[in-house]
């Protein structure tokens, strides 16, 4: 054995020791049960999603055969694919905008630590812990043409108001996204509040002494320093609302005229009709869309954070 090999062996030894030590102190079987559930109930179905999207699996047949892109061409030619994809993206963007606007406004309004503000913060968190389905039913009742919201408007304006909030083919998608934002605005508020708390009070004091107005400090100091909170809120609201089902199902069931039909509403309907492969193909569309948006979104928002 030459000297070089000996040195290599000497250098290698501690690494082997470290590895065997880690093996005995933190044994690999600790991760086995968790990954058993993760793989069987999450990873395998996700992989199968790719496979079954290209088959003719349905409740009308006993066997499953490959059928190429026929599910996708069918979804495309029926117009469902483009329409539902467009509606889901529009919904997610609207939710992200409203949820963050409401959350940010609430955070600024309830920033000071007074008793009333603390009560209000807790109250605005109640919708977050409610079932989304329940929230949907509540708003279906509240927004009825002759329901409470319209009667309030009638009272304020002094003339009968019967706005068909949930029956308008162009505006109902906005209404349901506002309902979604209403449910989650308490969460966005808390995250913005936590972000505002991390800002050094001395910086704000210095700006105030220099004569900066409340709005100037907000725009030039506090808003840029909120970047991490904005990143988190935008990413979670945008990606979370793409996988939404409950609120829209409870308020409009995808109507009127399919104008609020999110991908998940279609998936449930197609599955109920026994069109399993088509439902799977649509869920693959959802999966790919979330992935395509998630990585650049998180990456670019993180990057913006570093610059600011």
């Amino acid at each position, binding site marked *: 054995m030459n000297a070089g090999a000996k040195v290599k062996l000497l250098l290698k030894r501690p690494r082997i020791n470290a590895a065997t030590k880690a093996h005995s*102190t933190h044994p690999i079987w600790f991760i086995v049960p968790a990954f058993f559930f993760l793989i069987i109930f*999450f990873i395998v179905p996700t992989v199968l999603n790719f496979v079954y999207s290209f088959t003719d699996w349905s409740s009308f047949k006993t066997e499953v055969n490959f059928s190429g892109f026929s599910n996708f061409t069918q979804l495309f030619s029926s117009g469902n694919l483009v329409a539902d994809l467009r509606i889901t993206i529009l919904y997610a963007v609207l939710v992200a905008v409203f949820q963050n606007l409401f959350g940010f406004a609430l955070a600024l309004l309830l920033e000071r630590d007074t008793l009333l503000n603390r009560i209000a913060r807790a109250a605005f968190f109640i919708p977050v812990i409610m079932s989304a389905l329940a929230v949907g039913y509540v708003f279906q009742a509240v927004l009825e043409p002759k329901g409470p919201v319209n009667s309030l408007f009638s009272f304020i304006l002094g003339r009968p108001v019967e706005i068909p909030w949930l029956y308008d083919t162009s505006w109902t998608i906005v209404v349901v996204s506002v309902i979604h934002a209403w449910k989650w605005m308490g969460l966005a508020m808390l995250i913005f*509040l936590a972000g505002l708390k991390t800002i050094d009070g001395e910086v704000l004091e210095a700006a105030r002494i220099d004569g900066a107005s409340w709005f100037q400090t907000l725009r030039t100091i506090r808003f840029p320093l909120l970047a991490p909170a904005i990143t988190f809120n935008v990413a979670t609201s945008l990606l979370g609302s793409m996988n939404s089902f409950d609120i829209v199902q409870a308020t409009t069931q995808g109507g009127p005229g399919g104008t609020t039909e999110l991908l998940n509403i279609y998936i449930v309907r197609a599955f109920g009709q026994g069109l399993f492969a088509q439902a799977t193909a649509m869920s693959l569309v959802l999966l790919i869309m979330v992935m395509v948006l998630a990585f650049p979104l998180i990456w670019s928002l993180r990057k913006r954070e570093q610059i600011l």
Partner: protein
Amino acid sequence: MLTNALQRPSRIFQPLAVLLTMIFSLGVPFWVIIVTAGKSAVEARQPNLALPSQWEFGKNISTTFSEGNMGVASLGSLLLLIPSVFGVLLLGAMASWVLARRKTRGLLIAYTIGISGVIVPPAIVPIVLLLKQIGLQGTPLGLIGVYIGMYMSTVIFFITGFIRTIPIELEEAARVDGANPMRVFFRIIFPLLGPVIATATILVSLFIWNDVFYALFVVGGRLDTLPLNLYQVASSGLYLQNWNLIFSYILLMTLPMLLVFIFAQRRIISGVTSGAVK
């Protein structure tokens, strides 16, 4: 002096703005839930802001139990919730410990796969097919497995981050005394995970308690859970627009989570905001 004078109007204006925002954005929906849950079927047909002419709250509640199967549904929800939460947290914590402490290439890949579910939405239709093939479709056991698999990523993500902040010297001291990995984990690490376990328990419980989408696919029509029954009560023609029953149901199913929130408010708030603003 000047700042005081400028701040004074906002001292009066701010609480007023808070109250008005609360009344219009929360007050209206919450008021409608409470008054409608107390109305008779006839009065509740057209939801409005009026008080019930006679409170029939008790009668509505008993109807949700007798006709809406509230009792059975609560048991069904708990039957799913308890094993799922227990399983995902215990197994997730065990995996997180090794994932946090060992930095080999293989385990790094395992960690990436482990947290993939934080972003990737679960593929529900293939899940149903898979459950059919292994004979678990339509069973509580199948849905428990789905919940454990689905929320494992969130749990691993939370707990791994937390364990990395625990100094390894704590473990080493016990190891010198001859403790094996099981002992080190359950005696040293697990008790230190209290805060993060509490947060994750509340979050996962909230998801499962309120879930209707995955339950509909896996156990729909075979097992009563609170959101599934609400869905059936509200969408079946028989109960169409029986708002008094729907809102009594909503009130009752929200109550347990509301109580948890009131008692664990601080924990929940610090939990949901931790890591989001750093």
